[in-house]
């Protein structure tokens, strides 16, 4: 068996957070896994014909249908009694999960298929050139929500997909980060041990789209968590059962200033926008109990 189930030679950008997270996921899931992948960076950089970086069975169909294709794969395994031996993972980026792919995903969750769905959230349509998605955070400058004299970037808050997943009453919902590899692997393992629909939302920095140094991927990912902007939490049976807690949350500016997509927030006059982002982190901290009371 190969060392890793996602081989080198893929064409992800240097320092890609999604490449590292996807490898951690499949290495944890193991060889008896079928991957169903929506269109997006991950699919493009791993499957340029006639080559593939995947060491497990893999299928890509369209941008928005991984939820439905995976349901079909799972149904076929169920029909032939192989669902006990083979796990199914449906994965997509933030656009493929939260925007165009949400309907198929909702159907898959609602029907109760035994599938782990994963969102690799790099907070914009990176594959097509950094356009805004429903998971692009407030005041992010993207190519379709550029900051300018009359705009501070994306005016809308990030959609909360975990809450949408929870509304389906599925047994396991969690978030993880490329900056916390062992936590991520633990959650994949836990999710795959549960029968039924599972959802794992993974925050993955994109050096190209976020405009940070490739070597900073890990640092940036950790800061998102350490500021409270990306809460790492776990829900089992609809109840929050875990959170990565912070002894002293860092100011959001520490996270934002490393990234070109937020550069406009550090110019004179952007103080209010910066405060709004701090308020988002503060709300996350309160809502998910990210700081334990002394």
């Amino acid at each position, binding site marked *: 068996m190969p060392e890793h189930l996602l081989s080198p030679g893929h064409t992800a950008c240097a320092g890609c957070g999604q490449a590292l997270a996807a490898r951690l996921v499949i290495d944890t899931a193991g060889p008896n896994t*079928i991957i169903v992948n929506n269109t997006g960076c991950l699919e493009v950089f791993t*499957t340029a014909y006639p080559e593939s970086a*995947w060491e497990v*069975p893999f*299928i890509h169909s369209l941008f928005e249908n991984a939820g*439905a294709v995976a349901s079909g794969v799972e*149904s076929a395994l169920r029909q032939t009694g192989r669902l006990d031996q083979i796990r199914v993972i449906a994965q997509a980026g933030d656009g493929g999960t939260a925007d165009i792919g949400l309907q198929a995903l909702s159907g898959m969750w609602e029907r109760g298929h035994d599938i782990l769905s994963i969102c690799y959230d790099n907070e914009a349509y990176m594959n097509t050139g950094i356009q805004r998605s429903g998971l692009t955070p407030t005041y992010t400058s993207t190519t379709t929500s550029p900051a300018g004299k009359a705009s501070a970037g994306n005016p809308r808050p990030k959609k909360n997909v975990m809450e949408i997943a929870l509304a389906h009453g599925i047994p396991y919902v969690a978030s993880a980060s490329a900056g916390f590899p062992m936590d991520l692997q633990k959650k994949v393992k836990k999710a795959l041990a549960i029968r039924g629909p599972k959802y794992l939302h993974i925050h993955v920095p994109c050096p190209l789209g976020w405009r940070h140094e490739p070597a900073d991927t890990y640092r940036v990912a950790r800061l998102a968590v350490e500021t409270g902007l990306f809460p790492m939490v776990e829900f089992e049976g609809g109840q929050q059962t875990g959170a990565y807690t912070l002894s002293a949350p860092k100011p959001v500016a520490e996270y934002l200033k490393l990234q070109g997509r937020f550069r406009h927030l550090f110019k004179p006059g952007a103080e209010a926008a910066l405060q709004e982002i701090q308020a988002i982190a503060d709300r996350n901290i309160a809502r998910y109990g990210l700081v334990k009371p002394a």
Partner: protein
Amino acid sequence: MKDFIEGSDAVARAVALCRPGVISAYPITPQTHIVEFLASMVADGKLKSQFINVESEHSAASLVLGASAAGERVFSASSSQGLILMSEVLFNIAGMRMPVVLACVNRALSAPINIWNDQQDSMAVRDSGWIQLYAETGQECGDLIFQAYRLAESPEVRVPVMVCLDGYLLSHGLEVVDVPEAAEVDKFLPPYRPTEKLDPAVPMTFGPLAGPDYYLEIRHDLHAAMRGALKLIPSIAADFSRQFGRNSGGLVEAYRLEDAELAIVAAGSVCGTIKEAIDALRQEGVKAGLLRLVTYRPFPEEAVSAALAGVGRVAVLDKAISLGATGPIYADLATALVRGKHQARVNGYIAGLGGRDITIETIREIFTRLSGEEVSAGFVGLKG
């Protein structure tokens, strides 16, 4: 066993006899009866399939794609808007060479919304890489399902097949249908054993990104497989005829064409009406005939050209239109006749859109107009 049943029931019973592992569909009129019949067979334990209710036709098509890739025989059905919503996936299924079989219960397209029959839906996806077969009778609705699986799963074809049946006229019309025994069907249709499937033992990557260096060859290969099906379709129909003792399927059916001076070319249930009109006209001394297209994609150019040899005037009756151009069958037929160096005069007529009745009188009118003005898309039966 003979039974007096709907075309939908004939389709459902045929599908059940083919024992798909996974069935998925979304409700749309007039397709719903097919999947309701199948759902009740599954609920009663008579059919051991996964019947998956999905949240859209896009997902129904995607779901059967996934199940097909995982190695199962699959079935779906749709109509009209549902088929058009699926269309993105239809192209994908064909491109991935998944032997999916789908019943399209033909219905008009919106707007205005209209639930009645024409063939605009399936004609709109004629370029998707699916084989399209059009049934004339309730019997043929079922018979084409058996042939569709055999065709789609043939290793040299591996192309999805759409069995088209006219909404209401066939789907809801009751006819005596001979439903074969399971053992007979098993003799005709071997179990589905794909050469490659999603399998950890041989972990292949399905659906890769193919750049300009590869895409052209992959598309050509699909085209070549479709053209190759032109040879296989008649041989499967012949096998079917040998085993079940009746003629169904094939590329085309020639009806009283041997000495015909005038002919209509059409597809689907309207051919029954045309045959009646021809019989009446023949009694009146008019040498009329019919060329029924059973297979529309791949387009059987040579069979069409040969069947119409010697016919002076040809009317194409389309129950669909490429708006701003002509009916789709007209365009293909005209091309085939030019390539076949025919001297026939070919007129195109559009009739029956949105469920407007096509009667024997409508057919007579077409034959009459065939001797008049040259038209490529002459609407028949327009009011005032």
